[in-house]
């Protein structure tokens, strides 16, 4: 990924920054310039909760080449208590034991290493919360 792209996305990727509409309160990740619910254009920066519930998942067995070292790996969509949903890899888990509804904790991990520009990119991954 081109370095400027990684740099530009650091607030949401590294600090999990989202934005909430100052009028209707809808939360957006990544941040947007206009609210799709009420049309308002002013937002407040918030940090995402660090826990959510697994809504769906899959195990990728034929990945794109930059992820080939990691296959098979799980990826899923989680839902936070504030209604926001996001996608991410699920790691440190038994692939056979994943279940919809499981509690997941967000952790900061390396996502891509095989980059043509030599950039290591980091972002959130999900880890099942067994306790």
């Amino acid at each position, binding site marked *: *990924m081109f370095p400027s*792209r990684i740099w530009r*996305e650091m607030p949401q990727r590294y600090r999990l920054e989202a934005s909430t509409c100052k009028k209707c309160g809808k939360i957006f990740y*990544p941040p947007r310039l206009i609210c799709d619910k009420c049309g308002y254009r002013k937002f407040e920066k918030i940090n995402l909760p660090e826990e959510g519930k697994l*809504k*769906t*998942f*899959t*195990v*990728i*067995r*034929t*990945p*794109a*080449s930059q*992820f080939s070292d*990691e296959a098979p*790996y799980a*990826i*899923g*969509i989680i839902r936070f208590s504030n209604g926001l*949903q*996001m*996608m*991410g*890899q699920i790691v440190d888990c038994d692939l056979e034991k994943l279940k*919809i509804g499981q509690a997941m904790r967000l952790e900061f991990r390396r*996502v*891509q290493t095989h980059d043509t520009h030599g950039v290591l*990119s980091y*972002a959130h991954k999900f880890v099942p919360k067994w306790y």
Partner: protein
Amino acid sequence: MRDVAVVGIGIMKWGELWEKSFRDIFVEAALNSLDDAGVDKIDSLVVGCMTGGLFVGQEHVGAIMADYLGQKNIPAAHVESACASGGLALRQGIFEVASGMSDIVMAAGVEKMTDTSGDGATYALAAAADQEYEVFHGVTFPGLYAMMACAYMNKYKVTRKQLSSIPVKAHHNGAMNPYAQYPFPIKIEDVANGVKVADPLYLLDCSPITDGAAACILTTVENAKKMKKPYIKITGSGMATDTIALSQRDSLFWLKSTEIAGKNALKMAGRKISDIDCVEVHDCFSIAEALVTEALGFFKPGMGVKAAAAGKTALDGQIPVNPSGGLKSKGHPVGATGIGQVVEIVKQLRGEAEGGRQIKGSPKIGMTQNMGGSGASAVVHILEVE
């Protein structure tokens, strides 16, 4: 607005066509559509192609195809809506004829997917998803539909075997289609005995990588009558969009863009879903076919897979779905798929479907549904015998 009809259709044998170029596959299908219509000059060309740039390094698709088709200096546009580019080309072609700007328009689609590696194709196709917030994390297209399937099967208690009935039906129909990439039947146990791509989807749940093109000739109904050829009237067109990222949808298995596009097309045609005699839908993955039949209203939410497993979508079922073999068996040259669907419905309505796959009882009203990405865009058309 002027009423619009299809007066010619053209397709070619789809597959891994290493001996044929991007431009040649387009011209082959396009010439077949001109011959079918009995026309040698068109006023304008609209070509759907998802990404000539990423697959073969060729953009400026409208101009190159008009040039090689021998239609010098005509206006030509390339339209793109990922895998729904073909459906969109038809819709734009209809606008051009209906508005009075052109009298004879070719709406076509083309994709050359095998001049790159499997990894190159994966990269190109992933461009239709949310690059920064989905693909970045390592998801693939099978992965996105697998996530829909996982949530759906969990909610409605659908079995793996029920889901396998969809590709089995596709290959049954496609085996009778001489233009199909994989014209052979498969057995239900073949699906889950195959290679797992993204749980719960196996290789036989997925549409293939295909080179192919298709074209149709549009004109006014008034013109069509003068041409004294069988014509099929286009009575409805609908298009809608949805969030680019699957994760941003409240329901991960309700295809909202297809629901809205379908309702708008039916409203324009003055029809209801039970009036439809046959339909070609976007079965890029087995689960997609079921979700589409629910979103269009053929079956209740949660009943799409079960209805298919019960034979309701077979050639002799309640609503024949994908008589052509669908994307699964016929092939999925992404930009051409939407026009390939129109070719099949026109054949069915004319009573010309080859190989024993003609639907009995002379179908009069057909529908096509073409979808982009994980449902971020959808285009629906209704075609009728007048």
